């Protein structure tokens, strides 16, 4: 009975540091609550939540009402100004970026208006594989006349993918089919970039993209590296824990004195 009680005390004594740690943790928890009451506004520091993808023709639980994008640039001098238009979501679902001089402006043009209009894919576009909205990208002058890209000039079209897990590329609709454009990933894996030499209707279509900005590739690399480190640590630990090679049979090995046996003898 006495032995049993003393064993309990010994167990409790061993657990004391952990219990003390729990008490310290609870105290810290209480202090943190006092210092930062739940009603106080949170601090916005580093984590960004994306808006859901907004569909022009939503179905089921999909979000609707995609934003348009518009930008008016005044001409200074003879060449066209830089153009950067984006739709209003966070991050934008469509963007058009063009450097200075990219548009073929004629005499009398005083301003350029760029517009990004989200459209529900037509039946033909859906059958052609359009993923998400179709975006009509236009640049017009002050009279509403289309202004094309200058010969040899290019603009950057960026479209956001509704689903990061689907391989897509930027496609330009030619009236009957999508022409898949060489596509790279931008700042985020779901932002697809393509260089275009004319404006029109663009959408994401099944295809592949590439680029150093691919977050998925980086993530896969990091996971592989972590797995390699873990495997290495496990291997080293196993090797160090392996029993020493047995002594030659001709020399009888002297057994190590067992602590328990020693105690019993005493």
């Amino acid at each position, binding site marked *: 009975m006495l032995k049993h009680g003393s064993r309990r005390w010994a167990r409790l004594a*061993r657990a004391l540091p952990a219990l003390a740690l*729990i008490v*310290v*943790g609870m105290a810290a*928890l209480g202090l943190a609550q006092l210092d930062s009451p739940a009603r106080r506004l949170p*601090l916005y*520091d580093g984590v960004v939540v994306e808006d859901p993808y907004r569909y022009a023709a939503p179905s089921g639980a999909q979000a609707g009402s995609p934003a348009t994008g518009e930008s008016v640039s005044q001409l200074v001098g003879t060449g066209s100004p830089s153009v*950067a238009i984006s739709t209003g979501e966070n*991050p934008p679902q469509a963007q058009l970026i063009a450097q200075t001089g990219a548009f073929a402006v004629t005499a009398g043009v005083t301003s350029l208006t760029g517009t990004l209009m989200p459209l529900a894919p037509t039946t033909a576009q859906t059958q052609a594989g359009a993923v998400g909205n179709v975006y009509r990208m236009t640049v017009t002058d002050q009279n509403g006349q289309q202004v094309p890209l200058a010969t040899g000039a290019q603009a950057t079209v960026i479209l956001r993918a509704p689903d990061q897990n689907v391989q897509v590329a930027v496609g330009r609709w030619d009236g009957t089919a999508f022409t898949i454009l060489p596509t790279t990933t931008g700042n985020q894996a779901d*932002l697809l970039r393509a260089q275009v030499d004319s404006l029109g209707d663009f959408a994401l279509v099944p295809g592949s993209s590439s680029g150093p900005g691919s977050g998925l590739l980086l993530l896969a690399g990091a996971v592989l590296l972590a797995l390699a480190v873990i495997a290495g640590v496990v291997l080293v630990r196993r090797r160090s824990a392996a029993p020493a090679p047995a002594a030659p049979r001709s020399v009888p090995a002297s057994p190590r004195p067992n602590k328990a046996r020693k105690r019993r003898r005493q």
Partner: protein
Amino acid sequence: MKSFLILALGLLALACTPAGASPAPASLPASASASESFGPRPSSPATLAITAPQDGATVSGTTVHVTMDLENATITSSTTTSISPDQGHIHLYVDGVLTSMNYSTEQDLPVTPGTYALKAEFVAADHAPFSPRVWSNQVVFTVK
């Protein structure tokens, strides 16, 4: 013993998370007004301009050096909910994506070849925007 330690460490980790911090704090969508998401927000006398790279610039390399000119306000290094109209931080957006949160008016951004749109916003010390929002000019630059 091990389970005790794990429990204790878990509690400590929980204690180190302030109750007021949202597990997924949101940045304000570009389309929304500041008051929609944060309630009434103060206005700021600050003006912000990107001075480098210049609009239309072509740069080379793997980073682009961004410099800004901030007037009528100062940058504070502390993040706090006790905000002041003339103190805050700078958020940099590349192609509409929040890319860095600055505590100075200079920053090196990693870039790859392509054409980009860069803009900056002066935000309050709690990283939420002022109302109206304080945006810089937008700059388009190309990396070769």
